[in-house]
């Protein structure tokens, strides 16, 4: 279980998070929602150790990981699919996957398994990552994170700007991982998508966690959406 409690963080002197707390449980999809600038992406980066925390802790199954050097965090099998995909664009598809495999010293078996999930990538192994289509790039970004055999998977708007069939494919992968017991933390803007797959929703407002509700409770009280998202 990934527990984020009361973290304060930001970029240099610009503080973005003023006490955000959330929990990602194994076998559940926790969605993070909030308006633009509420701190969703910042929270993800802070969990990965990419931003310094001035207060608060991040812990995984009781171990505090927010005091580790940033490159040690992924060794705990936390996979990250960042916003905007952020592939190693000069590297080939195979090399991008190789970097993912190196993180937790995974081998051939994992590689084959990941490529079976995304057969399109297998056809393009030697192509440079930046020459892939948007959907294929998203597949690769997801595949790269799956190479860690993650216990926790962070996905930051994985369906942004994709065609419906691709969104469905990504959704399938997320649901399968959840069923395998992975704790999933998903940043998502589209309300219908969240209602369809989330187990729990945490709302961020101005860098603080405002509310955490189950998806059933959210369906029952639609004015929550209006209050935190303005929709």
């Amino acid at each position, binding site marked *: 279980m990934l527990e984020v409690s009361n973290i304060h963080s930001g970029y240099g002197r610009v503080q973005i998070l003023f006490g955000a707390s959330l929990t990602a449980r194994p076998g559940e999809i926790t969605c993070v929602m909030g308006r633009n600038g509420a701190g969703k992406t910042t929270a993800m980066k802070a969990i990965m150790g990419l931003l310094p925390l001035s207060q608060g802790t991040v812990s995984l199954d009781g171990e505090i990981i927010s005091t580790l050097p940033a490159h040690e965090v992924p060794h705990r099998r936390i996979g990250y699919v960042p916003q905007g995909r952020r592939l*190693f664009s000069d*590297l080939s598809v195979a090399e991008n996957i190789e970097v993912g495999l*190196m*993180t937790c010293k995974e081998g051939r078996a994992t590689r084959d398994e990941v490529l079976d999930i995304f057969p399109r990538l297998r056809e393009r192994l030697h192509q440079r990552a930046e020459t892939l289509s948007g959907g294929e790039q998203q597949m690769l970004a997801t595949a790269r994170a799956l190479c*860690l055999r993650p216990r926790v998977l962070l996905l930051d708007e994985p369906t942004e700007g994709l065609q419906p069939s691709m969104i469905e494919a990504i959704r399938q992968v997320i649901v399968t991982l959840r069923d395998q017991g992975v704790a999933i933390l998903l940043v998502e803007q589209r309300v219908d998508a969240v209602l369809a797959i989330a187990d729990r929703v945490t709302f961020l407002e101005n860098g603080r966690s405002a509310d955490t509700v189950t998806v059933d409770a959210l369906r029952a009280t639609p004015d929550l959406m209006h209050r935190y998202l303005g929709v």
Partner: protein
Amino acid sequence: MLASLEGAVTAATLALTAMGLSLVFGVMRVVNVAHGEFYMLGAVIAWFVSTTLGTHPAIGFVGALIVAPVLVGLLAAAADRLILARINYDPERTIVATIGLLYILQQSTLMTFGPDARPVEPPFNSRIALPWWRQGENGLEMFYPWGLATTSYKLFIIVAAVAILIGLWVLLTRTRIGLVMRATQADREMATAFGIPVERVYAMVFGLGAGLAALGAVLIVPVQQAHYLMGADPLLLSFIVVIIGGLGSLPGTIIAALLIGMSDGIISVFFSPTLAKILATLVVAMVLVFRPQGLLGKASA
């Protein structure tokens, strides 16, 4: 013929030195003004090693070929940890910091090594006469004109540099260390998010870059002599090469090193070394005007 051979020797060492500069800039986005001093240190250490070992020039040379790049690389890695990491690789501050490093290295060499230029004996140095062709009674015939000669050592420089460059290419494209370096170059933050210890990669790259400069210097020092001010010229030429080739583009660096090295050699022989430098600088200006990203650079990094 002779001129292009001289040019090839210049190009060979220049390619090594510039490659180091380009690698450091590509991965770390650091403009290393002290790069020429690492080159100079390579030459000075080569002199030191070969006079200490001093039995046979070949033993001293092989010793220098191993010791100098390793020592310079370690020194550079330490400088990276102690200085560059502390100022967070901020682009402006790294330039000032490496200028400081330049003077520290240069002046401490003056204090210890002294102001003299000291020669290093080449491991082997036989004169090789080069054939030429002329129209004789029975068509083209080969002859050995007087003065057309090179030394076996100069040929060795070219071969060695090519071998080292191929080795570097293999390291970068075929090994895990190379993959880690290229991933760090592509996206530092994501490299961290996938467990790559970026600080250690930076120290390694900075050391490797300096080591390449030192290697270039060890190769050239039997031809040129070691001197505490010898770093300025290769620094300038390396910058020219790296700008023409495209900052951070390794193939571009090689092409530009060949271009500048060959033209420098040829023009120096037929006209004057000053004209060669003037033309090289002119090429830089033209490249900056018409193709600011360099020959093989990408438009917006």
